[in-house]
């Protein structure tokens, strides 16, 4: 299988771990990743201009279309935005026309056929839980995990179609096959606070704090994320002090699954990530 890898803006600089473990995971699942010169998914521009945000996404689609590849991204925000843009592009005729013209200026075009997958939905729908379970050769210790779903993949459901927006299951199922046990908490589908981190840091961290408290009440050891932004938010330094206080650490889903699929020889960094976990 061959997919265009859409890392998103943040992963390279802020969360290299996610990048490497994601790649290592894909390697183990025999997925070829192609790196294209993608630009920003367009999500940040949603604040300033609807048109810009849609165009940014469509341009990425057109790039992937050029190589006849579907897109996979480990970031929920990018996933949501790409879905959202493809919907707007299709629904809004005037917008579509303008986008098509702009693409033509760069010798690009898009016919709407490129699909975008998020890491989780890809694993769940395209590879299958059973298939992954077969490959697991390293049973992880029974640690308690709470899941951070990430808003933009989950909602609006009518656009992203990711999972049941009120009671999602995909994430839990994928974690539970590794040996880790997910526990229930009330805030798995709530926002991590990252979108307003830059503008209203105080509120952003307040929201995060409430999540941590709820996670603590549920008795979890780790909060598991599968989104660049959520993880960056949990990695926030001032916040990590509190994490240590509560003894809860955020972990990346890719690290968990990567560890469960056995140690990778090639990729040192990914290996380190796995080890830390176990």
């Amino acid at each position, binding site marked *: 299988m061959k997919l265009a890898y859409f890392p998103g803006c943040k992963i390279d*600089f802020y969360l290299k771990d996610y990048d490497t473990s994601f790649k290592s995971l894909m390697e183990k699942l025999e997925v070829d990743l192609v790196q294209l010169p993608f630009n920003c998914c367009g999500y940040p521009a949603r604040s300033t201009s609807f048109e*810009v945000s849609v*165009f940014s996404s469509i341009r990425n689609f057109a790039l992937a279309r050029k190589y006849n590849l579907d897109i996979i991204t480990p970031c929920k925000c990018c996933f949501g935005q790409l879905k959202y843009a493809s919907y707007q592009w299709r629904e809004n005729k005037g917008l579509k026309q303008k986008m098509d013209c702009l693409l033509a200026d760069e010798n690009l075009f898009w016919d709407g056929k490129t699909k975008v997958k998020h890491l989780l939905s890809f694993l769940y729908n395209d590879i299958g839980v059973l298939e992954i379970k077969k490959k697991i050769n390293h049973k992880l210790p029974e640690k308690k995990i709470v899941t951070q779903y990430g*808003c933009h993949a989950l909602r609006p459901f009518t656009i992203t179609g990711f999972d049941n927006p009120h009671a999602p299951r995909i994430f839990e199922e994928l974690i539970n096959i590794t040996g880790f046990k997910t526990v229930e908490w009330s805030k798995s589908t709530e926002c991590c606070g990252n979108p307003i981190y830059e503008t209203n840091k105080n509120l952003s961290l307040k929201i995060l704090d409430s999540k941590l408290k709820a996670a603590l009440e549920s008795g979890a050891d780790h909060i598991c994320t599968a989104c660049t932004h959520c993880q960056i938010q949990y990695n926030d330094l001032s916040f990590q002090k509190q994490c240590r206080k509560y003894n809860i650490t955020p972990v990346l889903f890719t690290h968990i699954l990567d560890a469960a699929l056995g140690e990778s020889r090639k990729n040192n960094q990914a290996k380190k990530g796995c080890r830390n976990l176990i």
Partner: protein
Amino acid sequence: MPKLKLSLNLKPALFNTIFQSKLFCASKTRWVIHFLVFAGFTFLVFFHALDELTSFNLFQYYQPTLDPFQFLRNLAGFLVLTGCIGFLFRRLFKTRINRENKTKYKEIFSIILILLVIISGFMLETVKIISEPAFLEMVEDYSDLDEDTDLNALMTYWEKNYHVVFKEMLIITEDTLEKGRLLNDAYCLDCHSKIKSAFVSKTFAMHLGEIANSLNHYRADNWLYPIHYLLSFLMLICLPFSRFFHILMIPFASATHKMTSRHFQKETVSVHPATFAACTNCGICSEVCSVYPNFLITKNKQILPHSKIESAGKMIFSGHLNPEALNQLQLGNDECTMCNNCTDICPSGIDLQGLWKTLPQTLQKMGYPDNYTFVKDKALQERGKKQAGRTYELTRNLAGRVYSFENCVQCTICTNVCPVVAYAGNDNDMTPQQIMNLLRLGEKQMAAETRMVWNCLTCYLCQEHCPSEIKVADIILELRNISNQTAGRLKIMTATNKANKL
């Protein structure tokens, strides 16, 4: 600017300065062209211009007209020449992202200056080669020929092998040539290698033809010398004022740049303004910019890093930036996703990302805060003012179309699920449902200026839960777009008013 803290990062700086490693990563052709000039010029500076200090001391028998120095000098000159032509070609015939003509001329000036120095050097060498008077003076100084035939023989030999051009016709015979060769071996060979190695100047000299005589007549070798010197000094003088400055600043920028994501999050970013001068306006940063497509639609040049750094430089050094431009800069910088692409690639090693991070603080001081802060602060001062002659707006898009929010049954579910309402307390003003009601009351603008619009996490909980399936979050995002535009207008207005008052 925030407190400056210089910590040097020498190894990569050295690497980048000497081998231009970052440019190499960014663009191979550019690296080739640039490296031609860089290597050639560096050689010329050290072993030719400063030969009194360097070459003479390093090499015992150094003479500029001796091989390999003569050859190397020509080679270096040739490399610089080719490089410069490459520069010019790129600038004249290859369009690059949004280059302003002004900067183009400035650059071309610099390139032409280099070209002139090199060409004048070559010309100097050329006229020296052909110069009869110089030849005669040398003969006078370094030989003890007293016979005309000897002189004639040497002249013949030199005309043939060193391309000196003599006024009178010389009769060339095997004998005189042989004699000339012997004399040459005796007197000149210590200092003069075969002219072949000066392959550029030789070629020039051979093709001078008729002009050669007049050049000799007017002693071109004498007056080209100061010209070459003058041009070189001109370059030296221009160094701090023009693009040449990057020669000094790149090492500085590369050395002070020490950026990791950890540093970045800790907010201990400090960017020395001097590093701005390291920017060569190459535009490579803009080519990899994540939000480049934003520029294609908004046409706001200040989205692109190479424009931003220029404006930021202007703003910080001279403060001469009009309100419109400042607003554009704020908007442009706001689009930045801090993906580090530009910083990663910047051949000058400038800490661009650090600059983008600190820029908002500077802009805020100048009256261009980010929009959330703007809306928040404005709420305290201006909202209380009575709006005279209120009109009710009838518009047609999501936030303006009644159909999109009139089905609201006032159940407050959106408000109840909203994390912002739950946690923000006094940081927030309106709830999502109240925003819908403001819209229904025809107060679109007011709705756009609420803090809620900027506090919104865009988590879509409200939209997902609305029993009437109103697109609450989409509407709020649309209002944010409106707020973004009007905030810009207001900022410009306030700044202009302030300026007018002053």
